[in-house]
């Protein structure tokens, strides 16, 4: 079925331009959704024809945190929870870059939750791709602030009784200007969403529901990653513009996906420039970056 490894040199990897081929094979498990997320991200960059030199990827810590290590742009693997503030520093110092945060649900919504809401409030012009696998995967499948009620986790061995966050609702109410949710099954739509988010000035969030085949899935007896893909196929319902407050995810229940928020609001730098121009008049040189 598979071609023998020896044939590989004749068939360059289709994403060679965007991957650190010297780091492949990656560390992710078979049928993990993370490979698909990377593929969708790469495809989005390709669609937009963005110069790769102008893109920076920042990740926190976790299985998803490893994304930064495989994408061949300027890439930063930082500390658990701090990808957004690190990216804020990068972006505010050089706003011409496309700064993208790709990290996990635990990283962004638990330990980094405060940064998530404040970056949204400020409307910092970065894109956040939050891979939600409903668990802390890297550390072995502990409960996350996204684990559905009733799901099993290594630190909720009798099932989770803590109410999870609804990420799109959190993002919208904190001020994000673009919010979408897709699953790792929806590669084409996910690619479009990532491309739209990248183009959107301001704080944009794409939540990706992604199978963790090894931990979340196994612990909850949901089969392989492939079985979860099948589940997404049968149970994801596309509802563009659905009110974000209705997007809670129950254990093995219907998952609403789609684009929920797409609006205009001045970015942090635009708001600052406009304000200071009013205060200082001609003495103020509009800020385009701290490094000339």
């Amino acid at each position, binding site marked *: 079925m598979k071609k023998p490894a020896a044939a590989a040199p004749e068939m360059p990897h289709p994403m060679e331009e965007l991957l*650190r081929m*010297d*780091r492949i094979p990656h560390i992710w498990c078979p049928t993990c959704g993370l490979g698909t997320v990377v593929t969708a991200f790469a495809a989005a960059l390709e669609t937009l024809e963005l110069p*790769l*030199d*102008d893109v*920076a990827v*920042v990740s926190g810590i976790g299985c998803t945190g490893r994304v*930064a*290590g495989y994408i*061949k*742009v*300027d*890439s*930063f*693997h*930082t*500390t658990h*929870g*701090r990808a*957004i*503030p*690190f*990216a*804020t*520093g*990068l*972006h*505010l*110092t*050089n706003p*011409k*870059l496309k700064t993208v945060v790709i990290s996990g649900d635990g990283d962004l919504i638990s330990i980094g939750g*405060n*940064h998530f809401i*404040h970056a949204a409030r400020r409307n910092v012009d970065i894109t956040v791709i939050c891979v939600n696998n409903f668990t802390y995967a890297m550390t072995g499948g502990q409960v996350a602030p996204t684990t559905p009620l009733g799901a099993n986790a290594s630190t909720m061995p009798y099932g989770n009784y803590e109410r999870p966050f609804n990420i799109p609702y959190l993002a919208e109410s904190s001020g994000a200007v673009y919010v979408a949710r897709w699953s790792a099954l929806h590669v084409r739509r996910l690619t479009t969403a990532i491309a739209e988010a990248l183009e959107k000035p301001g704080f944009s969030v794409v939540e990706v529901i992604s199978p963790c085949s090894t931990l979340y899935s196994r612990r909850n007896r949901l089969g392989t990653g492939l079985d979860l893909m099948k589940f997404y196929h049968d149970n994801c319902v596309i509802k563009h513009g659905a009110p974000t407050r209705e997007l809670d995810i129950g254990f093995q229940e219907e998952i609403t996906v789609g684009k929920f928020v797409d609006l205009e609001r001045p970015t942090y730098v635009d708001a600052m420039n406009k304000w*200071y121009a009013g*205060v*200082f008049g001609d*003495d*103020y*040189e509009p*800020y385009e*970056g*701290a*490094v*000339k």
Partner: protein
Amino acid sequence: MTADPKGVLTGEHYLDGDHAAAEGALAAGCRYFAGYPITPSTEVAERIAARFPLVGGLFVQMEDELASMAAILGGAWAGAKSMTVTSGPGFSLMMENIGLGIMMEVPTVIVNVQRGGPSTGLPTLPGQADIMQARWGSHGDYEIIAVSPSSPQEAFDHTIMAFNFSEKYRLPVFVMMDECVGHMTEKVVIPKADEIEIVPRKWYEGDVGDYLPYKADDDMIPWMVKVGDGHRFHTTGLTHDERGYPVMNAECQETCVGRLVEKIRSRVDDIVVLEEEEVEGADVVVVSYGITARVAIPAVERARADGINVGSLRLVTVWPFPENRIRQLAKKVKSFIIPEINYGQLYYELERCAGGEAKTILVPHAGGWVHDDKDIYDAIKEGAK
């Protein structure tokens, strides 16, 4: 290289240490600042917030100190000289990302205007009890550089010195101020821009395809690039090889961490800045730093006037510790006296380096105010016996 005149407020001013540190940062070329308010450091942030818009800098008040520290690392990778400022509780929150700065070798500056601790302690009153935290506060092995100004003038000068150290050795550098220096107002002379020496970043100038983020030459300092330069590099807080790629084994740990430590340890004598008075031939040497030097030095002078053969050694840089100089002096003096606004922190270093050859006497102070100079005077008398 000399300073960019745009940030330099040349002239004579009356400034407190906090404002002077802010001017030092501006003069050093700092153009990205992320911070979170905390007494007694807030005035540094306030002055920068007021000054940055017209010099092309970006000030942002972050949601906490975890964010501030992470943000200035990002700012530095984007090519700016960056800084944050805090005090005890915020310093504690910064520790993990200070470690990231050490591991990624990011030039940046952290000003800690020390107050009394532990915990919320004495927000409006001085302390010097974060000195060991500056050295060891983040997990893992590393070396750091810290300076400790004794006056507003030095708050200005030492902040520039801290930026220069950070660029030269590629690491976060601490300005360990205290509430007294931060809030005392004195004359501060800001020189002309072309009289201020600035160490530029060690920029990589080779070809795009050839860049290795952690390949260093004999000086052990890797070349730096900034995002958007086209190198499409990777960096991580994980133990990494020259490419910046994670490598999880003991051998790589040795090379990676070994260099982080050695790049400073092998240069201690180049880095250390001391101010000595009447140390040669003294029986007693008083070792002091920061605000405590302002009390210790008059006590030394009074003791000398009273016929005691005592000298003063002031630590301008508190880290790395001047091990060689102390070992040398230990062979000659009867005793070292060290007053600190803590219950003994650098005292342990002093005792270690004195190696039993000279007596070491601590003059502790719990914080909240400076020493009574009589306590230092009495210790000198005791040490001269």
